[in-house]
C-alpha cells in the first residue's frame, strides 16, 4: 500500500512563506561611462578610436562602453610590457615584487563589494557567487602567489629558474575577475610582465582591476589590459615579441592558438573545454551527492569548463537520485543576479543562450526526457531554467558535447569498470567527480579517471594552492599551486 503511494508523493515547494526581493545596492559600485585601454600604467584611447558596448545580460541594458584594441594598441601594450620587463621588473628584488602583489590582494579585498556588484552586473552571475566565491578567491590567488615571488629557488629541486618575459593572456567570460587573477598573479610573481585581454562581454572587472593595479603603484607596464574581441586576441597571439601565451577558453580556439604559435618560441598554457563525469555509486552519501551534483552543474549557470554536466548514477539508486534532483531544483531561484537570494543568474549572452537552447532541442529530438524546474523567468534578459535530461544515451550529443549551461544529462551504469570506461570515453579530461562511502573505491576511481582535477565526495572546489588544468583535449599546463609556477619559468641547470 505504502509502496504504491510513494510513487505519487510529492513535496510542495511553492510555499506560502516566500522570500522578498533582496537586491544588492548598485550604487555601491562606480562604473565609468567609457573605458580606455590600460597601457603602461595609464589609460590610453584606442588608436582606432573604436568602442563597443558592454551590456547587463539580465536586462540587456548598456552598462558602459569599452575600447576596442587593434594591432597597434596591442603592439603598444607589448612594448610597454617588454620595457617594464627589461628595465624594472626582472631586475627588482623578488621580495619587493612580492610585496606589490600582496598589496594588490589587499586592495581587491578592500573593494570586494564593488567588484562583486560589477561582476554580477556585467556577467549575469548571482551576487552570492561573485561575493562569496569569485572576488575572495581572486584576492586569495594574488595573496598566494605573492608569497612565492622570493621563494622560487625552493620550488624546483636542483634547478634555478628565470622568467620567460612578456606573457600574453586571454581569458574567458565565465569568471572574469578570477581568471584575470589566475593569469596575472603567477605571471608577475615569477617576474614576467603581462598583456591581458578579458572577454569582450565581461571586461569591466578586469578594468576595475587595472584601476586597482594603478592605485597600488605597480610599476608602469608590468600589467597591461587591452579590451576587444577575437581580433584583439589574435593580435596578442601573433605578436612576435610575446614569449608566452596563456589561454583559457574553448578547445576550438585553443587549437587555433596552438597552430598559430607553431614555428615560434612561444610557450603555451591552454585551459580548454571539459565535460566532466560525476559518478554516484549506490553506497554514496546520496543527499550530499545530490547537492554536489547541483553545485556541479548549476554553479555559475553551468558556465564552467569543469562543470559536472554528465551524471552517471548507479542504476539501483537512479530513481532516488533523480527524484531528489527534481525536488532540489524546485528550490533554486532563477532571476536578478543582484538579488542576494538568486541561485541561478542570467545566461552570459544572447549567443550563449541560443547555443543552450539548441542543445535542449537536440536533447528532446534524441529522445531524452527533459525536466525543468517550474520557476518563473524574468521577461527581459537571457535566462534558462535549471534542466535535467533523463534517459540519456551515451551516444546522444547532449552527453558528448559541451553545452556550457544549466543542463544536466543523467545516465545510468551498473559496474565500476563500466562507468570508468564510459567516464574516460571522452576527448576531454579536465575534471571528474565520484561519490561513494567506500575508501578503496574512491582511490580506485580517482586514480583511473583521466582528468586533471578529481573531486571525491565533493565537487567544484577551487583553491589558490590547488593546481587546476586538464588532460587530453582539455589543455595542458597547470594554474594554481606550486605546479602553476612552472608555466611561467625556464628552469636553469
Amino acid at each position, binding site marked *: 500500500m505504502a509502496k504504491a503511494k*510513494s510513487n505519487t508523493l510529492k513535496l510542495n*515547494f*511553492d510555499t506560502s512563506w516566500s522570500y522578498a526581493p533582496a537586491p544588492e545596492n548598485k550604487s555601491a559600485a562606480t562604473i565609468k561611462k567609457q573605458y580606455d585601454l590600460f597601457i603602461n600604467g595609464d589609460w590610453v584611447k584606442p588608436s582606432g578610436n573604436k568602442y563597443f558596448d558592454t551590456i547587463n545580460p539580465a536586462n540587456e541594458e548598456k552598462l558602459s562602453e569599452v575600447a576596442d584594441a587593434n594591432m597597434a594598441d596591442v603592439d603598444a601594450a607589448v612594448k610597454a610590457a617588454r620595457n617594464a620587463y627589461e628595465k624594472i621588473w626582472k631586475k627588482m628584488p623578488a621580495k619587493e615584487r612580492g610585496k606589490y602583489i600582496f598589496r594588490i590582494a589587499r586592495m581587491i579585498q578592500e573593494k570586494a563589494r564593488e567588484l562583486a556588484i560589477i561582476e554580477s552586473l556585467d556577467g549575469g552571475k548571482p551576487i552570492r557567487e561573485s561575493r562569496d566565491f569569485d572576488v575572495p578567491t581572486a584576492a586569495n590567488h594574488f595573496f598566494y602567489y605573492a608569497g612565492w615571488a622570493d621563494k622560487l629557488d625552493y620550488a624546483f629541486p636542483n634547478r634555478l629558474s628565470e622568467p620567460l618575459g612578456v606573457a600574453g593572456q586571454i581569458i574567458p567570460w565565465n569568471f572574469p575577475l578570477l581568471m584575470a587573477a589566475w593569469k596575472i598573479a603567477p605571471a608577475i610573481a615569477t617576474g614576467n610582465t603581462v598583456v591581458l585581454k578579458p572577454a569582450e562581454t565581461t571586461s569591466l572587472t578586469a578594468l576595475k582591476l587595472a584601476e586597482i593595479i594603478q592605485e597600488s603603484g605597480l610599476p608602469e607596464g608590468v600589467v597591461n589590459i587591452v579590451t576587444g574581441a577575437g581580433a584583439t586576441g589574435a593580435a596578442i597571439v601573433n605578436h612576435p615579441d610575446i614569449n608566452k601565451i596563456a589561454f583559457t577558453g574553448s578547445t576550438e580556439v585553443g587549437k587555433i592558438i596552438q597552430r598559430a604559435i607553431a614555428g615560434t618560441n612561444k610557450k603555451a598554457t591552454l585551459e580548454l573545454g571539459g565535460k566532466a563525469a560525476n559518478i554516484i555509486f549506490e553506497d*554514496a552519501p546520496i543527499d550530499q*551527492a545530490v*547537492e554536489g551534483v547541483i553545485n556541479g552543474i548549476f554553479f555559475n549557470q553551468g558556465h564552467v569548463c569543469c562543470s559536472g554536466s554528465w551524471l552517471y548514477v548507479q542504476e539501483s539508486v537512479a530513481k532516488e537520485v533523480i527524484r531528489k534532483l527534481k525536488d532540489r531544483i524546485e528550490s533554486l531561484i532563477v532571476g536578478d543576479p543582484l538579488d542576494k537570494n538568486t541561485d541561478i543568474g542570467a545566461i552570459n549572452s544572447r549567443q550563449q543562450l541560443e547555443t543552450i537552447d539548441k542543445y535542449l532541442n537536440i536533447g528532446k529530438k534524441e529522445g531524452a526526457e527533459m525536466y525543468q524546474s517550474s520557476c518563473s523567468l524574468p521577461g527581459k534578459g537571457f535566462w534558462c531554467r535549471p534542466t535535467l535530461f533523463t534517459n540519456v544515451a551515451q551516444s546522444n550529443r547532449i552527453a558528448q558535447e559541451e553545452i556550457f549551461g544549466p543542463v544536466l544529462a543523467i545516465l545510468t551504469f551498473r559496474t565500476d569498470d563500466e562507468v570508468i570506461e564510459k567516464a574516460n570515453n571522452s576527448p576531454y579530461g579536465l575534471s571528474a567527480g565520484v561519490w561513494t562511502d567506500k575508501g578503496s573505491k574512491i582511490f580506485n576511481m580517482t586514480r583511473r579517471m583521466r582528468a586533471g582535477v578529481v573531486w571525491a565526495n565533493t565537487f567544484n572546489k577551487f583553491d589558490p594552492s590547488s593546481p587546476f588544468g586538464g588532460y587530453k583535449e582539455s589543455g595542458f599546463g597547470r594554474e594554481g599551486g606550486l605546479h602553476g609556477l612552472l608555466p611561467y619559468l625556464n628552469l636553469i641547470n
Partner: protein
Amino acid sequence: MKRSESLFAIPDFSLSPRIDQVGAEERASRFTKRSIKKESKLNGLKLVLNMIDLTTLEGKDTEGKVRQLCYKAMHPHDAVPGIPTVAAICVYPSMVKVAKKTLGDSGIKVASVVTAFPSGQAPRDVKIRDTKFAVNEGADEVDMVISRGKFHAGDYNFVFDEIAAIKEACGDARLKVILETGELGTFDKVRRASDIAMQAGADFIKTSTGKIQPAATMPVTLVMLEAIRDFYYKTGRMVGMKPAGGISKSKLALHYLVMVKEVLGEDWLNNHWFRFGASSLANDVLMQIVKEKTGVYQAANYFSVD
C-alpha cells in the same frame, strides 16, 4: 509492534544511508545565505513564534514559574496587536497539570518530557509509567529520550522496542523522540537513530534535551529533515521535526525556517510539523517583530522575561 515480530517489514538500521559531514555542513551553511527582508521577515518571525515550544526544564521549577510561563505563551507581547501565540509549553511531568489548567482552551499544547529525561537511564517499566503519568495529567505531547547507551552498543532492537512501547503508552498524545544528537557523535548515527525512531512510530524527531552541548545545529537538523523526507517518500507518513537547544536568535531561527522550506516544503511549514524547543528565542523574535513594525531597534527591558 515489536521489531522481532515484524522483522521483514523493518529495515536493517545498520544500513541507514551514510552522511558526509562536510557536505552536510556546506549545504546547511547555504541556507544561511538566504536574505530574509521586509514582509518576508515579519511573516517568518510570526511563524517562528508560533512554532516555539516554550520550555522550562529545571529542578527549581515551581507551579508559580510554570503559570507565568503559560501566561507568556498565551500573551507574548500584548502591547503590539496581531502577534501569534507559541505552539506549546514544555515542562516536566509534575508540572503538566498546572500548565494544562492555566492554558485552558487557549489552543496551546502541553508537552511533557518523559522516560527519565534527560539521561533516559531507567528501566523500561519506569519509563512507561512516567509516560502514562504525563498523559493522564493531560499532556498533549510527550518528549521521550532514546537510550543512547544501548544505541552506541549497537542494540538497535532495544532502542526500537523501547520507542514502540512508549508510543503505545502515549495513547492519543503525540510522541516526540529526542535523539540527543550531541551524544551520538556522527551524522551517520544521527541518521540511523532518526530512522529507528520514525520506523518505531515517532510523530516527531527532536535533536536534543538542551542539557548537553552541542544541542541543535543546522547541519544536524538538516540530516534529520532529510531522513524525514526519505521516510515520507518511502511510507507516505509525515513526521515532525523539533530542533531544541541553542536556538536563541531570530536570525538563526529564520535560517531554520529556510531549511524547512527548501527541504520539506509547504506541508511542514507550520507548528503541527515543525517546532523550536527554546526558552529565550521567543523574546528575541518579539523584539525583531516590533522592530520590523516600528523601524526602531528594541531593548530587552521592554519585554517580559516570563
